[in-house]
């Protein structure tokens, strides 16, 4: 019961500490909104941010090139803008309005006409062996785009191949007959209809649900460790800890009482952030959102117990700021809160499993982004979080007991 009195008292104190409330509840919402705006998924709902912006300079202007560009325009993954000169195209690239320039050279149609089925079948010896240049096509990306630039160029090449295959096929009797047998054998229609669409990220779960909301929710959940450590420090500095330690309250109820308010606050914070993601970003919450509850509760438990360990280690504001911030940032970075886990190297993914953050992120990913949720998998992730909680709480209890005895 004593622990509960301490919890109620700390919740009261916390609700009257506007600075802590702002840090715990308002700041995460602001930050997540800013990230939402910067990725074009909040307020503006700008779907174009997810499309590859391409500036086309068509020096051929033949029926084939027009058809090719028209086909590209119909693809949801691309945002096509046509300009008349290379200067204008480079301006667009430099200003960031375009990610890629596609220059269709004057010989494009002529070279496309020369394409035969054998060129398609023998990519190592046929006409397109030199890639886009073999069709008088040039792709320019920003000099600093690196691997992404290469990826965009390869993507464009695959689109070109998809475009020329039906054209080449029409020149082959067997293939032509087969094409005729289809209702939509028309080459022009085939350009668009024949082009398989890249899987739509939004349909599966967008950037917000895959990374922004879970990543920052987990990071902010652990932000409370600093607030918690400060609460312990204030109790020590103002002498109220002496009162608590001389009161007829055992160490365990005392620590549970001190930890529980932050656990509740963390759970509230996580829930608010997810609510914000759902309401403001239209984030899908998975096929069985009820599984979010245990994940949120276990994440908050591990955060609060980590906070307890930190609380017993630091004694000054400077220590809280330095140790707390370092711990938060390092663990967040290790676990993949700052960028989608898919982009993390394998070794980092393995390292992340030594952090509670890593298990939280895996659990959120399993709930939000998987159509079929495996309860055993969620139970494993939550179990790991509870193991972290138990280890950290025991360490915190031991340190607190040891410190108060000396």
């Amino acid at each position: 019961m004593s622990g509960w009195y301490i919890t109620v008292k700390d919740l009261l104190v916390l609700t009257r500490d506007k600075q802590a409330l702002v840090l715990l509840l308002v700041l995460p919402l602001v930050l997540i909104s800013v990230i939402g705006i910067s990725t074009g998924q909040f307020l503006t709902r700008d779907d174009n941010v997810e499309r590859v912006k391409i500036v086309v300079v068509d020096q051929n202007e033949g029926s084939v090139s027009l058809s090719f560009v028209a086909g590209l325009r119909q693809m949801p993954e691309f945002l096509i803008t046509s300009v008349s000169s290379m200067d204008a195209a480079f301006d667009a690239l430099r200003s960031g309005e375009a990610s890629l320039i596609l220059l269709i050279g004057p010989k494009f149609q002529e070279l496309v006409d020369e394409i035969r089925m054998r060129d398609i079948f023998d990519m190592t010896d046929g006409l397109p062996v030199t890639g886009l240049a073999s069709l008088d096509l040039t792709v320019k990306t920003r000099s600093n785009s690196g691997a992404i630039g290469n990826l965009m160029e390869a993507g464009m090449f695959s689109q070109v191949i998809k475009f020329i295959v039906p054209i080449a096929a029409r020149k082959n009797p067997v293939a032509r007959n087969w094409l005729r047998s289809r209702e939509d054998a028309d080459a022009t229609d085939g350009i668009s209809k024949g082009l398989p669409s890249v899987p739509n990220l939004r349909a599966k779960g967008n950037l917000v649900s895959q990374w922004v909301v879970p990543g920052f929710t987990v990071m902010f959940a652990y932000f409370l460790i600093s607030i918690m450590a400060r609460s312990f420090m204030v109790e020590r500095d103002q002498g109220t800890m002496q009162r608590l330690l001389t009161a007829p309250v055992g160490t365990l109820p005392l620590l549970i009482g001190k930890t529980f308010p932050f656990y509740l606050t963390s759970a509230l914070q996580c829930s608010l952030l997810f609510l914000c993601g759902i309401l403001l970003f239209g984030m899908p919450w998975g096929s069985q959102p009820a599984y979010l509850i245990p994940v949120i509760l276990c994440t908050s438990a591990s955060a609060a117990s980590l906070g307890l360990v930190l609380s017993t280690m630091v004694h000054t504001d400077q220590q809280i700021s330095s140790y707390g911030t370092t711990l938060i940032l390092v663990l967040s970075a290790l676990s993949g809160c700052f960028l989608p886990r898919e982009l993390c190297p394998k070794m980092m993914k393995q390292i992340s499993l030594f952090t509670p953050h890593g298990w939280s992120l895996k659990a959120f990913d399993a709930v939000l982004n998987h159509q079929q949720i495996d309860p055993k998998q969620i139970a494993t992730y939550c179990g790991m979080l509870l193991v972290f909680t138990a280890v950290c709480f025991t360490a915190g209890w031991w340190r607190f007991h040891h410190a108060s005895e000396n």
Partner: protein
Amino acid sequence: MATGIKSIPMQFQSDRPSGEGRRLSSPEGFATRNSVESRKTLVEALHLRKSYGSHLAVKDVSFSIQSGEVLGLLGPNGAGKSTTMFMLARLVAPTGGEVFLNGHKYDGRSLDQRRLIGIVPQEYAIYEELSAIGNLTFFGKLYGLGRKTLKSRCEEVLDEVGLTGSAHRLAGQYSGGMKRRLNFGIALMHKPPILILDEPTLGVDPQSRSLLMDCVRRQTAEGGCVIYASHHMEEVQTICQRVVILDQGQVIANDSIHRLLAGVVADLFLYVDRSAGIGNELGDLARVGTGSNEEPVVIVSGDKKLTLDHVDNSTLPNDLEIIATDIAPEALDLGWRLEATLCKLKKLGIQVLSVETQQSNLERLFLQLTGKRLRD
């Protein structure tokens, strides 16, 4: 949950090793209304030691406190007062030695024994985000006070510490004095028989100080005891019956204030008319003033202090106007000494302009025992 305040049992079986308490107690040490026999030892510290690494903060501290007694715990900074108090309240585990509360060994584990102690830390140990009533209620609940008891006890304590009118204001909006009173009130909530006060009147105005002193007196009148650590010597002299003076982690004095002060020298200042000329007569005066040829008279002129034995009368400054004598009270009564000195001066034809006496006090005793060397 308990529904009332637990009172200390009047009869108890002592865990204390027999004989040790008797050796430490100082029955003559407290001049009070009650007889020594009616009192019981509420706190007993036996050979307390505390070391932090190689630094021995408290070397060997032993003392006891009886019910109805206020014990002043004095010492220069770093003497080990706070560590000793923390060991009594078991906020710090002693490296050696034992603490007995109400005759039972106390190691901080027994939650019931913790109810015996009320602590007033040097800091404002209050939650500034809560009101006075919020603070009192919270700590009252921790001590297991039931709802009815809690309400009535809150009212009593608020009245005792003069905060009834501001009970619902946030403590953060209080003045320093009000915070001190609330700090005190929290310790009183569960009616502990043992109060440990660490500088409870630090930075408060005379009104608040007077109120807090009354609270201390009430505590002892009700049979409790108080350990009072302070650097306010005047305050300690007023409120405490006995003092323990610590220096460098050791007890250097443990007795009643009355007895300790009996051994302290007092000053007698005589302002005389120098115009009549006092020349060699000063030598005779010295012997009269001190009652002993071995103790010198000190002549004070402005900031200069000259020992008569080493002064050539011809070099005495013309503006000499004060003759100060150190008088050992235990050698001779101060009143008699003054009378004798005045008679002698009259015989010498020296006119006395005024007389000042400086009684022995705790501060003088403290400096005499601990020295004037600055402490870190």
